[in-house]
């Protein structure tokens, strides 16, 4: 074999392997989603949303407590995390733009986005569960907010930086204060981006389990009291899937189905909005 064919052959093999790798990635995605759909759809029914869990081992009841608990915890986390994240992002992208402080906060936030979420759980446990002697919905919400702040802060910063500087100068030239420029010009120009970033952040924390394990814990009863342990879909999935009953496994699949479908739909829609709005 001469050197030319050898090089060509080597090239084709490498390219075929790369293509194979890409299809392997797709294969896992399809495999996982298909599996969740297959098991989830058969386990779906109306009682799942309307009834609370039956005593262990009895194949009745639903997960109403977990759905409501998940909504409560996520909403409170959003109410804490979003304002802090957006304001922090505004500070480093506007008032402190280009300073070392802004750079530091931006880098630290990027790191915090990937820090193990279970560590956040242990931290909140130490400051919000141990002193009061009981698990609570508030603690769960605080843990999720902790995870949310850096995510929202970084997206806000990125989105504000996409607003052309000349737009601000035009407003300054009209005599507006920086606060008015931010409120009436910059925020308006970046609204779609910031909003989609917030939605992505909510979708991300909605799927978190580890930080809730020892903050909001779990509760097999329906409650709206954030001072008590509160059930969430993700922790319920963990307990049910590890549990011994066939019926629990089915309910875990149903809950997994709902979480996956909601999160994937939200992610696809918001990503397409960003794609279409910013043509990136």
């Amino acid at each position, binding site marked *: 074999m001469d050197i030319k064919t050898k090089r060509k052959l080597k090239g084709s093999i490498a390219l075929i392997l790369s293509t194979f*790798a890409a299809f392997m990635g797709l294969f896992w*995605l399809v495999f996982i989603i298909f599996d969740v759909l297959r098991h989830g759809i058969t386990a779906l029914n109306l009682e799942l949303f309307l009834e609370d869990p039956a005593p262990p081992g009895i194949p009745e009841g639903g997960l109403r407590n977990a759905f409501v608990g998940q909504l409560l915890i996520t909403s409170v986390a959003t109410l804490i995390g979003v304002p802090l994240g*957006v304001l922090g992002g505004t500070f480093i992208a506007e008032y402190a733009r280009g300073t070392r402080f802004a750079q530091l906060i931006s880098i630290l936030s990027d790191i915090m986005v990937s*820090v193990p979420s279970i560590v956040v759980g242990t*931290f909140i446990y130490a400051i919000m569960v141990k002193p009061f002697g009981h698990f609570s919905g508030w603690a769960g919400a605080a843990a999720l907010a902790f995870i949310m*702040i850096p995510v929202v802060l970084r997206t806000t910063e990125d989105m504000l930086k996409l607003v052309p500087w000349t737009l601000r100068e035009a407003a300054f030239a009209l005599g507006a204060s920086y606060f008015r420029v931010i409120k009436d010009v910059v925020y308006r120009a970046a609204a779609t981006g910031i909003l989609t970033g917030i939605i992505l952040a909510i979708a991300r924390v909605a799927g978190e389990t*580890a930080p809730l394990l020892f903050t909001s814990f779990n509760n097999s009863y329906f409650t709206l009291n954030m001072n008590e342990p509160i059930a969430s879909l993700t922790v319920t*999935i963990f307990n049910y899937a590890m549990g011994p009953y066939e019926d629990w496994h089915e309910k875990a699949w149903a809950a997994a189905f709902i979480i996956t479908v909601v999160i994937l739909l939200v992610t696809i829609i918001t990503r397409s909005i960003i794609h279409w709005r910013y043509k990136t």
Partner: protein
Amino acid sequence: MKKLSKLPLADLIFGIISFSAAFTILTLILSTIVVLYNESSLAIHRFGLLNFIFTVDWDPVREVFGAAASLYGTLITTILALMIAIPVSIGIAIFLTEISPHILRTPIGIAIEMLAAIPSIIYGMWGLFTLAPIMAEYVEPALQKMFGNIPVINKLFEGTPMGVDLLTASIILSIMITPFIASISRDAFNLTPDIVKESAYALGATKWEVIKDIVIPYSKLGVYGGIVLALGRALGETMAVAFVLGNKHQITPSLLDAAATITVTLANEFTEADSDIYLSSLFYLALILFLMSFTILAIAKFFLLKAEKHYRR
């Protein structure tokens, strides 16, 4: 910068509020370290650092705690996951930038990124109910048959294939981190200037030679950043491995054996810790994990920033 007193009142108030919001990030990081250190001080005094790290025992009854088994599990699963994920992800990135027809690039890219959006608990549950039985029934016996007679290597595949073991956990972890490495590598590959690639083609290089000798060296900083980022992620992943690792504190050469990672230990035992020293040791584990992943993620960020500067030139 104008003097503070010259600023309009609205700016002053809004500036202070938004500054405090930005400052929360620093507060959160520092208080995490201080609180975790405080909570683990009991265990730090009792066991010290090196002794804790190198003690294999994890015995709540005798109140002897060591991190060695958990650290071992964390390292093995992470390394194995990276060994599987790195070639696959780079293959994906090559496919997306150089091979795939243009219309397919965006949809396949989005599909791969979807893998990153699936919550980790779904991976864990799918691993327990779908992957673990497949591993136990087909893959692991086949591996034993293949390597069973080769000395040394057969130690890796000893024991009864149960599916709940280091190998299954590593595979799930590798699926989870693939999209991170793939999308960062793809973005880095895309930044290679066309003119450099075209010069290589003009010299008669094949497509693979262009990728191997031009694109990959040019974008290596970005790829390193992606790999280290994935490493940091894999170290701290909890739910994806909690289902399929078995939480058994032991150091075993066999990949077909149950084990524990720091995260799995925390997830399983935190609410069950019944003595102060037990809880304190768990906090100690959390502190070690936090410092480890923080350092690694900082290194990843360093690579990515350097890459960014490199491409801007």
